[in-house]
């Protein structure tokens, strides 16, 4: 448990450090990029569905997999479309 807490605290510092250097021009892509990254819940959704025993778990898990996938692919594609315009 303390290991997980350590990781959490360190990630807080890394997050603040990295994000505070983001150029203000790119705040919208930052938000949508961060959005795509929290789609990583897809990993959790896959793990939980892959070991689901009951129908309830399976249904909840699959719904989560679907929603998380929308989050991931949508997030990265939208971000890419925006950043493409800044690249020159």
């Amino acid at each position, binding site marked *: 448990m303390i290991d997980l807490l350590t990781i959490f605290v360190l990630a807080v510092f890394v997050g603040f450090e990295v994000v505070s250097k*983001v150029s203000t*021009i790119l705040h919208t892509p*930052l938000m949508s990029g*961060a959005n795509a990254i929290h789609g990583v*819940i897809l990993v*959790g959704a896959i793990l939980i569905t892959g070991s689901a025993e009951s129908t309830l778990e399976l249904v*909840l898990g699959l719904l989560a997999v679907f*929603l*998380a996938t929308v989050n991931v692919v949508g997030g990265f594609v939208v971000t890419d479309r925006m950043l493409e315009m800044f690249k020159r």
Partner: protein
Amino acid sequence: MTVQLMYLVASVCFILALKGLSSPKYARYGNFIGAFGMLVAVITAYVHGVVHNGLWILIAVALGVVVGIPAARSVKMTAIPQMVALFNGVGGAAAALVALAEFFAVPDTDFLFRLATVLTVLIGSVSFSGSVVTFLKLQELMTTRPVLLPAGQQLAIAAGVSSVALCALTTAVPNGFLLWLLAVVGLALGVLFVLPVGGADVPIAISLLNAFTGLAVAASGYVLANTLLIVAGTLVGASGTILTRLMAQAMGRSLTNILFGAFKATTVAVHGEEQRTVKSGTVEDVAILLGYANNVVVVPGYGLAVAQAQHAVRELVSQLERRGVSVAYGIHPVAGRMPGHMNVLLAEADVPYEQLKELDDVNPGITSVDVAVVVGANDVVNPGARDEPSSPIYGMPIFDVDRAKSVVFMKRSMRPGFAGVDNELLYNPKTTLLFGDAKDSLTKLLAAVKQL
């Protein structure tokens, strides 16, 4: 071991993706790296973590791709904020569902894991319903003004208190029914929380909900003892928090004031029917003013985007530059519908990002600017924010365009801006008003400048 290593690779990719955003040049590669990290993580989870239901999972992923990609490809740049809100909402919902499923799979875990579970369910639900309401507001499927329900505040407090109570109860006594109830209360809380947030403040709500989803994902990382989810969720939580703070600063208001002190639109009629003179000019007047200036600053606002006039303004600016006029764009942090939205809209119109200047770049030299052109913006140039402590937007940093040598104000009508506050700048003798649709006016202006 390999699994942990792969998750570590993915975590590093996510950090690099965010780090890439510190320069517009490399940002796109950063995003590729982030997507690559995501692919690594998902394949690892699928290969090592899936005992059964593999086919079902693939079908669900395929459906998600079929829905997500076309939606992301077809969205207009003006509609990006609501799209981000929607993607954010589904992410929050996914986190809540994962925690629910895990609870039914392993109901008798220890105290801390249960706490993480109930928090994931609560925050995920709030984030989902809140995001859906922001989507509806920005898409203008419902009113953009603050919605003040009768006894809305009491309802919100009741929902808040009962969600805390349910969290405590479910952590103490694991019970499936209570957890479902918590999810429902969370959904209600999200709606009640976003309804009173009005128009211009909605972006702050999006940014905050983004941070919430990040936290929900991090908490679900505890539930599943998965380091990748903790790291990625925390990164998002941090970025959402920073952005929310920056936005609140840019509006010169505290976060609590934005979320709970709905503008209530009481200040609109302060000046009543009192007739005050404004100076309105013709397209030709303004063309001469601009064509023979040395130094011009354009301050665009969301009105520019609504009129789809990004390209028209860029053409006008190029024409002016051909005449030797030096032109910069003054971009206020809250211009547009989310932080940095105006930069995206202008980038879409091929405006080089070097021309996009911030408050601190523009204001110190504003007195030597010959013409400041305000297009579709209002509150961000309202001197009341600087000079009148009684103004509801007092304290918001503004472009001091009233200190430029002259001002051209392109406006559709005399209606006040989003905040419903009268703008003294309109009555300033230095100001020339150009009424009409922004795109229309800019096109005519371009033709007139070419004639000079």
